[in-house]
């Protein structure tokens, strides 16, 4: 496989995953906003910007921080390189240049999602926004479905690798935002707003039921953190994403007969995650631990690029 093709496939995986995550984030934020009285609802939108790493750039647009402006910025803005529109643009552009490596179904799924957003200028109110992001999630699910029907060859592995790398990054950012999310004055830790915030995080990764199934206790922040970091049963957890990264790299190594630094780093990370407990993580400081995880994820990302000669 051409190195350029592998690079594009990897980025298709990342961008589609990022688009889907942003859609989930908006859905959950609308929910949190609706559930809580202001100013907590406003806080939900501010934290959405933080999770999407778009807080600083949004500030540059000079727009007021209204729910409408923020959801438009995260969904449709062409000037936000991580908006759903920009992600789908980039995914499609990559897909177009490597069409021969994709199945027809997979290409059509990306193209359809892109066509859907192409004519949209405004998200409208929260009802319209909800139906918009639901539609996008349906399209990205369609892409995942098409992906699973693809040949299990390198193309499949590179897309999967990109998606797993992106998912690890997104989930880590999502947990970390709770660190930034300040409770309004007078609210106590474990109070209703605190609990709503944790529930929203679970909603974002569709893990509310999973939580109930795995833990018989009520909602406990440290258990939510454990679920999202260390439970292999949850596909979006850090440990599950790390395992997927190792798996895709193994599959590529098997087909090409080559392994390298990326394989080594990915295995080391996965082993470490398997041996860690949530107590250790809290002992180290959740925020510090997550920051280190995101840093390590970037290091693996760079070594993947080197190993397969992406540039």
């Amino acid at each position, binding site marked *: 496989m*051409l190195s350029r093709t592998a690079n594009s496939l990897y980025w298709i995986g990342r961008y589609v995953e990022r688009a889907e995550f942003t859609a989930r984030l908006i859905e959950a934020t609308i929910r949190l906003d609706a559930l809580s009285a202001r100013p907590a609802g406003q806080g939900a939108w501010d934290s959405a910007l933080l999770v999407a790493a778009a807080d600083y750039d949004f500030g540059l647009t000079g727009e007021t921080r209204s729910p409408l402006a923020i959801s438009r910025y995260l969904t449709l803005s062409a000037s936000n390189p991580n908006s759903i529109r920009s992600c789908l643009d980039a995914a499609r552009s990559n897909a177009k240049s490597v069409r021969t490596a994709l199945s027809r179904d997979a290409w*059509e799924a990306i193209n359809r999602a892109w066509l859907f957003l192409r004519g949209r200028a405004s998200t409208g109110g929260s009802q319209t926004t909800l139906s918009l992001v639901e539609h996008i999630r349906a399209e990205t699910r369609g892409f995942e479905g098409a992906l699973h029907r693809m040949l299990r060859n390198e193309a499949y592995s590179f897309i999967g690798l990109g998606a797993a790398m992106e998912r690890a990054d997104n989930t880590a950012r999502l947990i970390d935002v709770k660190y930034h999310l300040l409770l309004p004055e007078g609210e106590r830790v474990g109070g209703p707003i605190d609990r709503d915030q944790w529930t929203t995080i679970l909603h974002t990764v569709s893990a509310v039921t999973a939580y109930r199934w795995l833990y018989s206790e009520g909602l406990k922040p440290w258990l939510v953190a454990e679920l999202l970091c260390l439970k292999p049963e949850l596909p979006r957890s850090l440990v599950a994403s790390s395992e997927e990264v190792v798996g895709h790299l193994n599959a590529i190594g098997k087909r090409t007969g080559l392994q390298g630094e990326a394989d080594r780093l990915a295995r080391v990370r996965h082993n470490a995650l398997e041996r860690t407990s949530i107590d250790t993580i809290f002992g180290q400081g959740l925020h510090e631990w997550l920051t280190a995880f995101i840093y390590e994820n970037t290091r693996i990302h760079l070594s993947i690029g080197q190993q397969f000669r992406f540039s």
Partner: protein
Amino acid sequence: MAGAAAFDEIRGRPGDPGGRPEFAQLLDWMESTPATEFDRRQKAAEAAFRQLGITFAVYGEEESAERIIPFDIVPRVFTAREWASLSEGLVQRVEAINAFLADIYGPRRILADKIVPEELILANPQFRPMLAGAKPPHGVFAHICGIDLVRTGPDDFWVLEDNARTPSGVSYMLENREAMLRLCPELFEKFNVVPIDSYPDMLLETLQSVSPRRQRAGATCVLLTPGHFNSAFYEHSFLADSMGIELVEAADLEVDDDKVWMRTIEGRVQVDVIYRRIDDDYLDPLVFKPDSLLGVPGIVAAYMAGNVALVNAPGTGIADDKAIYSYMPEIVKYYSGGEAKLPNVETYRCREASALQYTLDNLEKLVVKLVDGSGGYGMLVGPTATKAQVEEFRTALIAEPHRYIAQPTLALSTVPTLTEAGVAPRHVDFRPFVLSGADGVTITPGGLTRVALREGSLVVNSSQGGGTKDSLILADDAGGRR
């Protein structure tokens, strides 16, 4: 002017009650299918094309960076007899084109024999002196030719233009057929149509056959594209995909020791055959345009060293140049020993004083073309042009006569076409695709029919409002099955 008297390929000549009895069933089908039903199917086809991303880009149009070529659902049909005689003429012409190229880049006998004026070749920008002495693997220069034909009567076919560089459009031939099979299956029950879906296999066989390696099997073939911003990118990816070969960009290739390699995740792999869809000018910055970023430095040296086959070979533009076109009957006769089976359209070479005078005297009757123009740009269609346009060309002709040729306006044939006012005749042309490999010449039984959608218009180019149709070749002349 061409509209009223034109020969219709399905209905025959206007006023001729006999018409074309072999197509009676097709007429029945056209007349019995309600307009709304045609409309529905046509929209379904266009929606499918858009979803597949079968688009092309029109340069200079930012707004609609990606458009689909309008598809017309009423097909064009050739009988087996018509196709057989066309094929003969096409084989003869393409064999002559390859013999001509081997001669021009070799011994130049045809110049010594004064069949073609020497300065017309040697001073032509399409002639690449640095390629003199080139011996492409298996002696083939123009592996893929698209010959543009027009028709004026039942047996009157004319070659309008040869395309010996990188002719495009074959993906439309294949996708149009797919659409027709899905949307009008009843047509294929009525008529015994020769399938075209082996084209990618035939193309791959042609590519493998010209591999410079002794062993044909296992030759590494790639398709070199300028990238996905190119207007024909869909076709590049479609063909690479259908053949199962890598679609590469210049950055994926490197030349080392006069051999071409591609960069893969497992290291570099030597490439034997490159189906390149990049113009000569951009192919190799060391030989042609030095500022080209689309090209591969050293690729021409690898070709000259015989280590890689370039499909088509560089320098083939000298065979389809419009100034050379007018000599094609002589060229075909010179190499084949017989008269050209497919005639040229009568052509006035404005570089010759008498032809220039005739052209200037008859501008409003003639079609005037730039020798090096393409895509319907730089062209005057006298009968439909405004006074100002005619005067503009008059000035240009007097200033640089050698850059122009002129041809009479032909009464191009028409084919019934779905229009806003129901089914109506529209002018068409036809581009069959001819493959030349180490084992000879093959032609897929089909081609690209382009149709001028505007009433009376003769310009079929997609960049100028043209559309496409499926072109059916019948397996026998019995009038169909049953």
